[in-house]
């Protein structure tokens, strides 16, 4: 205790000065921050000709050293540690947000030049130029967009009924049974299945019953549904648990059987939340690459039949164009941009729907 009393303020207006401690001015962080920035600019680009990129790092470093040191001098060790941690935590957040902004901005910058009408309406089939008789490489990714949408749709059609029925079982029927507990754990474990293992599973399953080289779009749907189901179960479960018990009881009291109560009362009440969950699940799998790479393969032309022949998808298209060489990288980035837009739109729509429906289910 004596150590704390030793660095109290010398302000004499308060006779027993124990509560008042010398503290840094309110804007101490700002002051040191500006100072650090000035030093970084002066000592970096201006005087030594270092890169401007170094400025935020040097300034950040100076701030995180100088402010706690100042605090240590004036406020004591404890306050200095507190300030140091506050700075570190803030840095962690700032640094964590850098990749997000960087990835998105980089994708837009690299991908935008590739996007034009032909890119969105043609596939990659090589054509013969009627005038010069040269082989023209395909210009578009329509086949990949269609493939991605079809395969994801297939996965959704498999996952949603299974996922929601499982959620219904867990919430309405299984309650606290042994079976329900086992399923809950398995769903958790399923969340952790590596996506490539899901793809291998589809391959193993279909080649067991088909020919060895089988690669069809539906295999991709099966692989993706394995990744989607746990997310759908989780959100469905969560949302249905939010439906108040008295709503159910009101329905039972009217003589409505349980299964109709579930379909007509519980599911509609939780609908917004369930929809959000499904869309988030879709946005999670729509960008999956590895399972499609092994289970669906890649082609250059449009194939709209999920049950016959290989299909192209955006993620796999990106990888294959990257592998084919540097001059095709622009196509890869264009496809990446479309994929990112697709994912972000789904994600945002899901959140907005969730926001709109949230107050209703919350009550």
């Amino acid at each position, binding site marked *: 205790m004596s150590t704390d009393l030793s660095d109290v303020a010398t302000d004499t207006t308060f006779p027993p000065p124990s509560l008042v401690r010398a503290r840094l001015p309110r804007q101490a962080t700002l002051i040191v921050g500006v100072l650090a920035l000035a030093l970084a600019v002066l000592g970096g680009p201006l005087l030594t000709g270092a890169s401007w990129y170094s400025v935020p790092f040097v300034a950040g470093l100076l701030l995180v050293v100088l402010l706690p040191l100042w605090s240590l001098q004036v406020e004591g060790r404890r306050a200095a540690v507190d300030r140091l941690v506050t700075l570190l935590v803030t840095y962690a957040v700032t640094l964590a947000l850098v990749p*997000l902004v960087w990835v998105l901005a980089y994708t837009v910058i690299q991908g935008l030049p590739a996007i034009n009408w032909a890119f969105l309406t043609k596939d990659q089939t090589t054509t013969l130029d009627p005038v010069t008789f040269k082989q023209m490489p395909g210009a578009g990714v329509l086949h990949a967009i269609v493939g991605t949408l079809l395969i994801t749709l297939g996965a959704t059609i498999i996952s949603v009924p299974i996922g929601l029925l499982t959620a219904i079982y867990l919430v309405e029927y299984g309650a606290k049974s042994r079976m329900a507990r086992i399923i809950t754990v398995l769903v958790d474990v399923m969340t952790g299945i590596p996506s*490539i293992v899901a793809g291998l599973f589809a391959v193993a399953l279909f080649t067991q019953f088909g020919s060895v080289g089988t690669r069809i779009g539906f295999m991709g749907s099966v692989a993706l549904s394995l990744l989607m189901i746990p997310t759908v179960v989780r959100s469905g479960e969560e949302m249905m648990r939010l439906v108040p018990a008295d709503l159910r009881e009101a329905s039972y009291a009217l003589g409505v059987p349980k299964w109709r109560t579930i379909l007509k009362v519980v599911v509609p009440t939780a609908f917004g939340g369930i929809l959000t969950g499904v869309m988030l699940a879709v946005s999670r799998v729509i960008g999956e690459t590895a399972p499609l790479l092994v289970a669906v393969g890649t082609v250059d032309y449009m194939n709209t039949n999920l049950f016959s022949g290989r299909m192209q998808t955006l993620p796999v298209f990106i990888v294959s164009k990257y592998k084919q060489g540097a001059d095709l990288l622009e196509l890869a980035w264009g496809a990446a941009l479309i994929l990112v837009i697709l994912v972000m739109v789904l994600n945002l729509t899901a959140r907005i729907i969730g926001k709109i429906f949230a107050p209703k289910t919350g009550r």
Partner: protein
Amino acid sequence: MNLTTTEPAEVSDTLSGGSQRGDRVFHGLAFAAGASIMVALAGVFIFLAIRGAAGFSAATGLYQPYTSFVPYAAGLLFGTALVAVLAMIIAVPFAVGVALFLTHYAPRPLSTVIAYLIDLLAAVPSVVFGLWGLKALGPALLPIQRWLNEHLGFIPFFAGEVSATGRTVFLAAIVLAIMVLPITTAICREVFGQTPRLHEEAALALGATRWEMIRYAVLPHSRSGIIAGTMLGLGRALGETMAVLLVLNASGPKITWHLLTSDNPATIASNIAQNFQGENIDLQVVLLATGLVLFVFTFLVNFAARWVVIRSERKFQ
């Protein structure tokens, strides 16, 4: 709302037992869906085992640079674990920091926005992370890799000749760290937020600063949650494929501690994605077998994580 529209005829039906059958059918359907999840998980194991069985003892030429399955899989597992563990070493401090910021430092509106942005990071497709890591982050980190090699080269991790492209284990670990950050952050955030107010106030009332309060009340309460979040992130990192495939310049299964050279160990997942598209069916069988190894390994890690969570839930009940 639907209640009022239920026709009286329906209601009287229930007395005759007509709807009981409906209930039984629906119950059966729901149960079947739940059971199908068990079947699916068992199916993953069984089909991988059936199709991959031959891969455990295939022709020796398929296990290059080794000659049998065990060292081959061990080499791949080493690469997988090395990259994933490094990723977690980088990601966990950030995840804890971000989660603390969200629960104990930021005002509510800011916290909501940042939580959303961090979640958005999880939505970016891994192939995009891969391309970005390759083309943008890799070159940007190259000077750092050189610096580490120059000044800390005496540490085995940073020894060797620095890769000219920057496509190293170091880079792969950083990209993976970014990718697992959201899931680990989400779990840390949840447990930090559940710290009893009572304990936080107990610390504050003793005259603790914010950090001291966190150290006394929040962190002890959240220890198992942080462990669980770390292991779930680890599970994700172990199985990540595309980002590693694109970012890492891998030269097959191998065991090396050098993080900055151009001679890097492949991971199970990236090795599968790299070689599965070829026409070599025998090699595909071997890859299926390694897939089974990956599945079992991640299964164990995830299971351990859940076990930690369940055990700690019991403790606090």
